[in-house]
């Protein structure tokens, strides 16, 4: 019981702090790639603190509600993950957050927000089936959706499901809204979209969304960590390499169209899953 409470506290408090630091490192590295100096790695916290200190402006109450639901869903999915609960349950909880983000953006007539919401929907449509496939293949490889049982495998999942890890990588890039998949919003919002789904969120509500995004980063990295749960050092190395690859891809790719994303990610994702699952069965 006490360990559970401690785990919940870690999930609620430490996860966003870690997520914020990761976002800071992300910006610093991006600046380094462009031979700039870049902001300090604690910049994310300054940004969010400033946003919380701003005037509360909202076009309608829905925006406020949706920002809160998004935050609670993201935090809850991380808590469930830390409690080593069911992967499918985590999947549905985070999907609720994602959908409420879209509802919030759709509740305002602003064209930027509307376009952003449509694109966010397409993104969700693209990565959710892949995420489900990843979870199902984890089930096929370990015989359980429960994280505590998945963690008990003797051999890292990565050896059994190497292609599924790439599929998870696609889902991760879309979920973190990184190039070439940053359709619904981008880090630098002075582009043609202004800020997509985030257009109507301002001040403290934008801060909530930002914190929720930190939670999601941790959740996604946690899912990656499942692929090498046998050795803590190897797990950390895997996460560092994965996130570095994410940043490099983000910096070297231009934004593509959603049609391309749908075609490419689905065809490659399905093909990879197919091959991997057949291989898994051939070996058994």
């Amino acid at each position: 019981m006490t360990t559970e409470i401690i785990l919940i506290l870690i999930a609620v408090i430490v996860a966003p702090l870690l997520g914020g630091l990761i976002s800071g490192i992300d910006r610093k590295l991006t600046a380094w790639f462009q031979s700039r100096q870049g902001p300090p790695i604690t910049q994310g916290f300054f940004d969010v603190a400033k946003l919380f200190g701003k005037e509360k402006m909202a076009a309608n109450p829905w925006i406020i509600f949706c920002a809160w639901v998004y935050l609670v869903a993201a935090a809850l999915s991380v808590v469930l993950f830390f409690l080593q609960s069911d992967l499918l349950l985590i999947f549905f909880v985070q999907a609720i957050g994602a959908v409420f983000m879209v509802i919030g953006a759709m509740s305002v007539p602003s064209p930027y927000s509307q376009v952003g919401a449509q694109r966010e929907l397409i993104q969700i449509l693209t990565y959710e089936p892949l995420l489900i496939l990843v979870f199902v293949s984890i089930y096929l490889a370990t015989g359980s959706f429960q994280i505590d049982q998945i963690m008990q495998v003797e051999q890292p999942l990565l050896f059994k499901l190497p292609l599924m890890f790439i599929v998870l990588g696609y889902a991760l890039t879309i979920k973190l809204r990184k190039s070439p998949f940053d359709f619904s919003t981008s880090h630098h919002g002075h582009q043609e979209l202004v800020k997509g789904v985030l257009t109507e969120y301002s001040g403290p509500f934008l801060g909530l969304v930002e914190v929720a995004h930190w939670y999601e980063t941790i959740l996604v990295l946690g899912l990656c960590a499942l692929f090498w749960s046998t050795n803590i050092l190897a797990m950390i190395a895997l996460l560092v390499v994965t996130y570095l690859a994410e940043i490099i891809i983000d910096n070297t790719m231009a934004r593509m169209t959603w049609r391309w994303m749908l075609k490419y990610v689905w065809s490659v994702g399905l093909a990879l899953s197919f091959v991997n699952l057949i291989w898994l069965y051939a070996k058994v």
Partner: protein
Amino acid sequence: MLKSFIKKSRVKSPWIMHFDCGSCNGCDIETLACLTPVYDIERFGIVNVGNPKHADILLVTGTVNHRNKKVLKNLYDQMPEPKAVIAIGACGTSGGVFREAYNVVGGVDKVIPVDVYVPGCPAKPEAIIDGVVLGLQKFAEKVEG
């Protein structure tokens, strides 16, 4: 403690929005030059945003005319408090060389309150960065006062 952290963060993370009221493009180029690796204003946490609802500081270049003064006012009204306005270049300050033109209202301060004026034609990137820093002090005072 939280209050003071928020107050400190304001100065550390100013997000600017850049609005061009019909400048000759000279000041715009200099403003955008601030974002390039040479001046790299992102190291101070400054981000160029395109959305008034996310912005803390409004940078205005060019002369205000009868056509765009409504847009300028509208953008200013959409920014949540606390906010600051910085008028860039001779045009933003007073209307510059275009001030006698028939459709020109004059400087930015004819339409919205301005906190900092950055002189120059065009204003140098260094001067713009100085202006932003001064603007931050102004709005820190505004919050306290």
